[in-house]
């Protein structure tokens, strides 16, 4: 039984594509046949983050319009045999995504894959609605920051009222909260919203806390999903989140971590 999972947030720049790439790769590393689809028509970036930008010939929109077969548009990941990417179009307008077209492609993918990860564009316009409409589960990516939390609240409302599951009166979309760019040190200093505060406000189950990490930028520089950087805190946190998503019980390890000693902290404070 395949599952459609959307990575969504409302706000842009919070880490949706990073998370989609990491999650897709993580699921594939765990042995599940997975495809990651870019829904950000006109502003595609998943290909770049996944490192397959030079292999795009046909895309999602070509398949919807019947200009290419699905098998021609799917790109097989070079590092992982369970992982595939369906890039989107760089040029066409957002009206290219129709509910019927998206449904047709998703149904075809459901026959071949265990997990279909949808990377949503920012906003609550058509592209974002299409990305979440057919979802069975949703990962809401939030930064511990006021505008991100507000937009996440909004997108949770959209999931609960405008998704296919909501419209058809089916079991609701299963929601997971992923807090990205978390800085335990700033939380300690009272400069950043606590995980508990974000959880209390948004009131959905916590899937993971991704620490602010330099490895995310380094990974995107070379087109490698950060989850493959096993030595980085962000990579490990994504791996834990994927484990929890698959039903494992894993403690949240980066929540209250203080990594600097007193001397370092004093130096750092005056710096």
């Amino acid at each position, binding site marked *: 039984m395949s599952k459609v999972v959307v990575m969504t947030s409302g706000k842009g720049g919070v880490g949706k594509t990073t998370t989609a790439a990491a999650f897709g790769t993580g699921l594939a590393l765990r042995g599940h046949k997975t495809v990651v689809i870019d829904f950000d028509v006109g502003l595609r970036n998943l290909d770049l983050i996944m490192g397959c930008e030079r292999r795009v010939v046909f895309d999602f929109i070509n398949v919807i319009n019947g200009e290419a077969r699905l098998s021609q548009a799917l790109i097989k990941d070079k590092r992982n045999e369970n992982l595939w990417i369906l890039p989107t179009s760089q040029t066409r307008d957002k009206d290219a995504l129709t509910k019927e077209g998206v449904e047709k492609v998703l149904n075809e993918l459901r026959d071949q894959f265990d997990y279909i990860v949808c990377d949503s564009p920012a906003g609550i316009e058509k592209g974002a609605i299409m990305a979440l409409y057919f979802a069975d589960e949703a990962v809401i990516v939030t930064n511990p*920051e*006021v505008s991100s*939390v*507000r937009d996440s*609240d*909004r997108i949770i*409302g959209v999931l609960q009222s405008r998704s296919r599951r909501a419209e058809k009166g089916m079991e609701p979309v299963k929601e997971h909260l992923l807090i990205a760019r978390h800085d335990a040190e700033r*939380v*300690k*200093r*009272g*400069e*950043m*919203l*606590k995980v508990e*505060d974000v959880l209390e*406000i948004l009131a959905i189950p916590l899937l993971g806390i991704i620490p602010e990490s330099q490895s995310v930028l380094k990974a995107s520089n070379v087109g490698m999903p950060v989850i493959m950087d096993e030595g980085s805190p962000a990579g490990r946190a994504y791996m834990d989140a994927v484990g929890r998503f698959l039903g494992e019980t894993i403690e949240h390890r980066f929540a209250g971590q203080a990594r600097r000693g007193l001397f370092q902290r004093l130096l750092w404070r005056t710096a």
Partner: protein
Amino acid sequence: MNFLRRLLGFGEKPSAEAARDRLQILLAHERANAAQPDYLPQMHRDIVDVIRRYVDVEDQKIEVQVEHSGNVSVLEVNIELPPMPARPKASQTVSAQGRKKRPARSRPAPARLAESAKTGTA
């Protein structure tokens, strides 16, 4: 550390607490509004147009909202009319309520204004 900082005179409220408090207040308000149907803004404009054919009202004096309670939805339209010269009072409020999709109640005659306002909001 927080304790030390406060002792040393950095006693102001941490900004993260301000963020949490502002979000809690804002989202309580926004969640109430998010339940409004998509057709409401257009319907609002149409209602304003119809009212304007008869009375010169300002945009912000017309409130249109849908409230849900149990399995009943109520369309609430509140229109504050401009002052009427023939009357001693400065302004009058007409309030009309009806079940969703039922045609709007016709505007009551001026003599019954007070009574209809009372039953309308009851």
